[in-house]
């Protein structure tokens, strides 16, 4: 399933870029991320608990950041697998200055879902993935505002 | 295993007391614990309707109920409608109108129709199709089933009108 969209951040691009490089921040922003361990240069592992109303699944997740072009663009890859199936998301992120210390993030990518959730829950994917992305970006923006104001 | 539940219910007029695991589906309890295999299981997610039984007279999906939920209630299955040598009027109508092919969806349809006709003894074809909309059948295209329900309604009406001797 293709995803694309954009989000306007209330902070400068350089700070946003720092945040994206900080695994603690990523862990805090990815919905339901319990833990995150660095397992390689820009590669992380952790537990993600995805919850949609009554449906909840624990996923053993991996996150990696590649194609970094500081402070402008990179590729985020999230993978997880659990009892209810697996998911894989690849997102290309592009950041541009909007002036007044704002940053516009454009993202495009693919979400792949498999197993039980895919076979009986298809009607939910679209809004779930959109919801999770918006949630993550919202959290990131909060962190950004905090970090930016603390300067 | 989780704590067992002491279940006490009536099925087809007979009382049963039995300890069951809470997660046991009513459909499995009826079929495998009580051996009432007339109730069929087609999807276990509440769409096909093959497992429909009457709970206190109401048609419900036995695959979406836990046996423990029938505690203190009364269940009627297809076995409780009529016997081979003494078919229920609805069963008889299904035979007359050829409303049965493979017969797998039939028990759930019979229980649904018995309850439906009790509430609506003189239904239109549209109402009948609406009443059947929660029971999938792959063999008949529903037409002979609809005919059977109409026939059953007629027969039960005339039987009702004739004074019992």
């Amino acid at each position: 399933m293709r995803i694309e969209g954009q989000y306007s951040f209330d902070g400068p691009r350089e700070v946003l870029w720092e945040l994206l490089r900080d695994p603690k921040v990523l862990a805090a922003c990815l919905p339901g991320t319990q833990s995150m361990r660095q397992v390689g240069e820009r590669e992380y592992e952790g537990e993600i608990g995805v919850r949609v109303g009554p449906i909840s699944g624990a996923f053993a997740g991996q996150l990696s950041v590649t194609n970094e072009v500081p402070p402008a663009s990179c590729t985020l890859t999230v993978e997880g697998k659990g009892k209810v199936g697996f998911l894989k998301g690849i997102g290309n992120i592009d950041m541009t200055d909007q002036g007044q210390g704002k940053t516009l993030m454009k993202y495009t990518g693919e979400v792949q879902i498999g197993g039980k959730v895919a076979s009986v829950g298809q009607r939910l994917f679209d809004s779930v993935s959109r919801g999770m992305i918006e949630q993550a970006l919202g959290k990131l923006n909060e962190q950004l505002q905090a970090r930016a104001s603390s300067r | 295993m989780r704590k067992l539940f002491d279940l006490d219910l009536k099925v087809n007029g007979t009382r049963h007391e039995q300890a069951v695991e809470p997660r046991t589906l009513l459909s499995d309890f009826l079929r495998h614990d009580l051996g009432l295999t007339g109730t069929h299981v087609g999807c276990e997610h509440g769409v096909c309707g093959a497992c429909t039984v009457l709970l206190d007279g109401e048609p419900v999906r036995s695959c979406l109920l836990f046996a423990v939920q029938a505690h203190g209630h009364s269940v009627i299955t297809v076995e409780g409608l009529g016997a081979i040598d003494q078919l229920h009027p609805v069963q008889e109508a299904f035979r007359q109108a050829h409303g049965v092919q493979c017969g797998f969806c039939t028990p759930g349809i019979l229980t649904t129709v018995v309850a439906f006709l009790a509430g609506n003894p003189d239904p239109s074809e549209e109402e009948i199709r609406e009443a059947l909309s929660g029971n999938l059948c792959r063999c008949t295209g529903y037409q002979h089933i609809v005919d059977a329900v109409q026939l059953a309604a007629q027969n039960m009406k005339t039987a009702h009108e004739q004074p019992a001797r």
Partner: protein
Amino acid sequence: MTKTLIGQRVLRNEDPRLLTGQAQFVDDVEIPGLLHAAFLRSDHAHARLLGMDVSAARQRPGVVAVFTAEEMGDDWQPGPPLVSPPPTAKDVLFYSRRQVPLVKDKVRHAGEAMAVVIAESRYIAEDAVEDIVVDLEPLEAVVDLEKALQPGSHLVHDDLESNLAAHLFQKKGDYEAARRQADLVLRRRIVIDRGAAAAMENRGIVAQWDEKSQHLTVWDTTQAPIPIRNGLAARLGLSENQVRVIAPFIGGGFGPKMMMFYPEEMLIPWVAKKLKRPIKWIEDRRENFYATTQERGQIHDVEIALSRDGHILGLKDVFLHDTGAYDPYGLTIPLNTQCHAMGPYDIKNYSTEVSVVFTNKTLVTPVRGAGRPQGIFVIERLLDAAAKELGIDPVEIRKRNLIPADAFPYEHGIIDQAFSPLILDSGNYWPVMQKALDMIGYEKFVREEQPRLRKEGRYVGIGITPFIESTGVGPYEGARVTVEASGKIHVATGVGTQGQGHFTTFAQVVAEQLGVAVGDVRIVSGDTAEFHWGTGTFASRGAVVAGNAIHAAASIVRRKVLELASKQLQTPQEELELEGGMARVADIPDKSISLGELASLANPLRGAVEPGTEPGLEATSYFGPRYGATAFGAHAMILEIDPETMMIEIKRYVTVEDCGTVLNPLILEGQIHGGVSLGIGNAYYEKLHFDENGQLLNASFADYLIPSATEMPRIEVGHMETRSPLNELGTKGVGEAGTIPVPALFSQAVENALADRELEILESPLSPNRLYELWSGKEAR
């Protein structure tokens, strides 16, 4: 014989049991000590199996055993080929790759079984399945038929050079020459997508190994108990007489239960024998969407050459057929497509070429229709396009091309699914089509109603589609008919039954011969202990092939009865009649003897049976047709489309069938009704949505849309009878007639309703969303 039973609306013998919950289906089998199986199935469509840890599952209380491919050792073998490629056909290429009991090296479709858990209950077995940890390395899935054949595509079977599973070319006449003379040549690309059979009963197997008697009993939801028994015996190293396969009442077959062997079908008996415990596995609905075979996926690049007056000069079809991850069923489906793409038409020049493609999807084997609907869809869509191009009425262009009544038997010069020459045995096509037109009031609708409704801004459309159905193919079936001392008749035959009413139609055939009540004829089918020669119930052949075998056996028994009765009553045979269970002298009531008494006399306890004679009033007989009988029919439909919501409502539906001698019109109508409902599903509701990774996105009845009572129109059924010269009864099959023409007819009626939009429908199934895209000229797909 006084009155004939053939053709009567006889009520079904099997119904009382089915109506009271007393009929035994596989999941109803209970055996003391029964254990239950559940499978671990792959989430991925294509992946390398790197490892599996089943230790936690084994330790779970209530779990008896867990098996993987490794544990099977040498017993791990791919299933036997079900149907070999056509030996007679030239230019045939076929790579046989068969399904495996459990994944060993790599997963080839989502839902393929990787391990089986045996436990005290299905609940515990499913708990334990979740305990298993699998290490899979995902590979790119092969999903798209065209991409699959492009060089560099990932391979479903690494040992093959490409994903080409088979290639078959057939021709008659000279298409290129015909094309050169044509006034009009049309070329189209036609896409038909996958659907499921979705019988209400999922598959199931119960296997019991008796160590003391060294005997295996298997209850199986199969359409082919005898081949299953033979295959199991061979695989388990047993004599065929050590294996009994019972196909009890079966909750709908529709083709996939003809598939032999499913991995579970081989595995469960193997486990039962290994553990010396009875095992039950009942497929659940989600498994059914992955593990039970499917059909229909094809892409046709097709060309038709016509003369100005609408005569078909030639047809050229090049198509791809999706066989899924394996191809155990050979070329049956594409052969059917090739044979039906000429429809009921007199086509002299034909060239057809199929490439069968492996994909990372569930296996494909016949589903009610079995390649025929695709063939009919192709030719009928082309004729509708041609009619528009040439400005000829759609009925007229068909009439001009129908095979004329005096042309039968009509030899096509290509081979059919049974590898015998495609010969249309008999038929009189136009009157059937005419009757359908009359029944739906075609003239009046087109002249008066449609114009009036169009003025009111309503989008109503009509269509009519003629079609053929090849039925009753060989090789053979057999039956044993016995008169018992009770006077009741016992009939044993090999074919299984899945709701077709065999217990009644077969009984009618026997009762007709022996002058007994239909209710006094007991049919036993699908139990190898009762009869162990035969193939199975498929290709609309039960009533034709088994029916005629039973007829033959009953005729012999009739002769034996008359011979013995004539001795007993000292009356010449020709003066005797069989009626009401008695052999009697026509007009002397007291000069009679019951069949029961005769049966006892034929099986004496003392005295001597004459040399050269057999005891009992019994006969076993077989029937194998020279080639398949071909039925004909025409369906017509009126529908209305809401031009804003794109929702379609079928207003009227008419079918006229010519399937030779009708045994029981009541049952025949039931077959048509059910067939049409699957056809309507195929045309408008039922599509298996595989995403680009081979994930099935609608593996539930909530998202896979089977027509319900509120979607089905009333179906008006008409009959014509052209006997088949190929068998005594003159019967042809009708099992798939309801399904075959529907998608073609539906598209025709939709185009007709939207005539002012001039849109062309070259795909099936359709949906409101898709229609909206076509309507608003958006080719988003």
